């Protein structure tokens, strides 16, 4: 009988943070990826980018110090670290599109084995579409990482052969950090980086429904 524990959201954020290197320029997407900032090891300098024109973004301020001219992409108040800079939107997205960011961490609805990403729309009829910076982020950074639960609430794999939800970008995801395993994706399909204790590879492949090479 196999027993294993899913990574908690914080454990997952800690796992992602472990792969971020000193001196990296990083964009953390809205939602779960924001947690990664809390786990960057002390003594390491990582420069956080926010799409609305900030490099060197710092943590949330105390409520009395909130400044609503200084917000992140999720529109929450943040701070600016010493050495930080402001710039306009076209420059901010040039930074992404131009491949100047080292790492971008995003949430996802689905990721294909070859690295296609679907994270902006469920394609539900009647829903109001909204894309924001998702498509720019997906294809812009040197490395795009996805952080998500491996399975939906219904138990279906979010890592798929082909995305059924509308695409955000093609072949853009390099790594998937999930609550059960860390996977590399690309033209050759999925490759295992690590998995939680007690979960064997066969079972992981069954959950995903796709081959995972070691």
């Amino acid at each position, binding site marked *: 009988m196999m027993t294993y524990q899913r990574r908690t959201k914080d454990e997952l954020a800690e796992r992602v943070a472990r792969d971020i290197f000193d001196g990296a320029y990083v964009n953390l997407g809205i939602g779960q990826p924001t947690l990664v900032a809390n786990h960057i090891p002390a003594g390491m300098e990582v420069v956080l980018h926010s799409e609305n024109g900030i490099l060197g973004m710092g943590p949330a301020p105390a409520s009395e110090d909130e400044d609503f001219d200084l*917000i992140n992409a999720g529109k929450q108040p943040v701070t600016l670290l010493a050495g930080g800079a402001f710039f306009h939107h076209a420059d901010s997205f040039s930074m992404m599109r131009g491949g100047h960011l080292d790492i971008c961490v995003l949430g996802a609805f689905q990721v294909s084995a070859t690295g296609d990403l679907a994270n902006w729309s469920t394609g539900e009829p009647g829903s109001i*579409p909204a894309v924001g910076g998702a498509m720019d982020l997906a294809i812009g950074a040197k490395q795009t990482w996805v952080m998500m639960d491996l399975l939906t609430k219904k138990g279906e794999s979010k890592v798929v052969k082909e995305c059924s939800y509308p695409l955000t970008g093609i072949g853009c995801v390099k790594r998937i950090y999930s609550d059960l395993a860390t996977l590399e994706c690309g033209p050759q399909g999925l490759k295992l980086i690590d998995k939680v204790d007690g979960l064997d590879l066969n079972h992981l492949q069954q959950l995903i429904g796709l081959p995972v090479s070691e």
Partner: protein
Amino acid sequence: MTQNVPMINKISNSIAEALSQVRDGATVLIGGFGTAGIPNELIDGLIEQGARDLTVVNNNAGNGDTGLAALLKTGRVRKIICSFPRQADSFVFDELYRTGKIELELVPQGNLAERLRAAGAGVGAFFTPTGFGTELAKNADGSDKETRVINGKPYVLEFPIYGDVALIKAETGDRWGNLVYRKAARNFGPVMATAAKFTVATVHNIVELGTMDPESIVTPGIHVSKIVKIEHVATQAGGFKKAA
């Protein structure tokens, strides 16, 4: 004795005066992202001014029932071009969209910024990797946008967004129209200022010519038509507590 009158004076005494030239059918670029950089006073002024059949370009599509949402509510906006219309409190837009009373052109945020930049920079069109292979690489009629593979990488052809008017919020200006912004309130302001034929900026401070550090001016006055001084006020934009 002749009076020494400055040749260039872009300082406007009132928002009404600054906006008097906005015509029906205009494309209006409105700065701001979240609570930062939204020119609320100019949007209120535009509502009062009464121009209709407008196309509005903004990152979002209004929050609550003030500012841009209030403008949409007047029914004078025919079309909105934005990246992120759906918000927790975008009920005014949601209703107009669901009842077919407003046209939406959804644009990835970086393409939106670059299309504005292209308009201001005289670029006829540009190839961008963003959106390739997605639903947003289609035209309004459902046909595919032009694509091209350059050095092995696929791109989509995107065209500029030209504004008739830009309404932006800055922090400090002078009578030549030079501007600096405050923190992340800069966002779309500088590119929108370049992309419109007529740019109106609100500022909190107007200073004497020569006072602003020439090395630090963000928007040179050539891109600005009028500046209007407004007071610092706490607002409720976006459902947040206050804005500087």
